[in-house]
């Protein structure tokens, strides 16, 4: 059996002094190179689970292990996020004051990579996303599909092991949705990365090797 890239043990997450329970005892194991879709109704805890898997937040109890190492103890969350994880958000979350090529370099600045290497890598990634003619544009000069492709390039900047996408096609039309998913799956297969996508869309979920359905903070099936 392939060793797990991520493992979740008895994960609980509550907010507002325990009044809101977003996750209520989640156990999960995701193998290296696996493509997993997390689905479920709004408020089921899927985004919270994704945040825990990506080290954006800490669990109230339980633990998340990356390659058998507990997040937040042996490996700190900042280092984990910068070296091992790439995030793609529904709202793109690009820096509005930076050009496309500069946005892609932001994660590399976090790792103190040299300016020349950063620019070369950002250029290569944007070219890979088919944005060679849009590198100098600001986010507000790009279409929604182009913005999401810049965000994907940014997520790949530090060559992460895991790609986490939270409703990556939520703000896109069907043509752009299909193109983005084609890119994401292509990256996952070409690079052997672990891809975890939170989605409402059945088509995207069905394309995944495994579907995890959540309801009321628990894994349903």
């Amino acid at each position, binding site marked *: 059996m392939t060793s797990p890239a991520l493992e979740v043990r008895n994960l609980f997450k509550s907010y507002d002094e325990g009044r809101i329970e977003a996750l209520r005892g989640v156990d999960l194991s995701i193998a290296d190179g696996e493509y997993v879709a997390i689905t479920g109704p709004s408020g089921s805890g899927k985004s919270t689970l994704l945040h825990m898997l990506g080290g954006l*937040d800490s669990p109230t109890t339980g633990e998340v292990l990356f390659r058998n190492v507990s997040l937040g103890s042996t490996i700190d969350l*900042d280092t984990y996020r910068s070296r091992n994880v790439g995030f793609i958000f529904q709202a793109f979350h690009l820096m509005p004051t930076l050009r496309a090529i500069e946005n892609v370099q932001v*994660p590399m600045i976090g790792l103190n990579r040299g300016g020349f290497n950063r620019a070369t890598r950002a250029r290569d990634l944007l070219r890979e996303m088919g944005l060679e003619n849009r590198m100098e544009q600001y986010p507000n000069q790009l279409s929604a599909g182009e913005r999401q492709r810049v965000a994907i390039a940014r997520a790949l900047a530090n060559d992460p092991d895991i790609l986490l996408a939270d409703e990556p096609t939520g703000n896109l039309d069907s043509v752009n949705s299909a193109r983005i998913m084609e890119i994401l799956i292509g990256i996952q297969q070409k690079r052997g990365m672990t891809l975890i996508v939170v989605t409402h869309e059945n088509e995207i979920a069905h394309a995944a090797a495994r579907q995890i359905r959540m309801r009321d903070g628990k894994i349903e099936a």
Partner: protein
Amino acid sequence: MAIGAFMGLVGFSNAFEQAWLRLYTSSGTNIAIIQRTFLSTSLDESATPKVKALPAVAQATPVIYNVMDLTPEVNALVYGWKADSYELESLQLLSGRPLRDGHPEVMLGDLLANSLSKKTGDMLPIQGSPFKVVAVYHGGSALEAGAVIMPLDQLQRLSSLQGKVSTIHVRLRPAPSGEAPDHYLKRVQAQIEAALPGLRAVPAAERAENNQFVRLANASAWGTSSIALLIGILGIANTMAMSVFERTREIGILRALGWKRGQIMVLIQLEATVLGLGGGLMGVVIGWGALHLLAALPQSAGIVSTYFPLPLVAKALGISILAGLTAGAIPAWRGAQLSPVEALRHD
């Protein structure tokens, strides 16, 4: 604005100090004898012969100085000198003749004469008494060029200080060969203080730096600047706090992309520093402009010069960077503490 105030005020007090120093050096005064007091110094004129009697002393002359209103708009430094004072030698008479003791007459610095539109032969009322302008002179420093010089006895009468003087200026004989000038100066200082118990003999450079006018100007410049700087720091802190609040989501993005708390702090502090430095540079320009404006105004031309030393500029820029860092510290810390998830949800 705070740095502008600092540059203007501290620059003014520095220029004032330099003007005092030029006043002493141009006349060749080595030592000033004063009372051991801070605000006003008043000593007996009769001490002068005792100083003159010391072998190392070439010349000694009693002096009174005061600031007086000459017109409702113009005030000026007024010196009371003896007609035989060696200090008159350093002045370049542009018109007229030197002073005579016991006569109600004055010599005007060229800057002041221009401000007052007075020339040799005109009358100038001071404190209700008429004085005849007997000369217009050119002085090397703003403190001379913008001043009035009158006979010592006349200023004693106007100031109700008969028999009293502000200071006695002393010009020394050259140092004996083989003796270092500093050592010679200290030795003569000690001799003068031994001859005049209760009085201090202060080297001219120290006197320029520490006389009551300069000390008051310095104290008020630093005091006012400190308050202005505090307000400036609060202004930058407010700007940075607003900036951090408005860019909460951007900070969240950076945190989500793996930026460490320290890197977020450095980013915000860098911005605060640039803001402080930018303000500082503008302040330097404003201060430079303020000094030039003050030096051109008749009310202040006599005591303000445009002396603008580089160390003062460096000090102002250093203070502005420090102000930026201080003001940015709390917003930077708060920005770094933001939870990535909460920050990303921020509108």
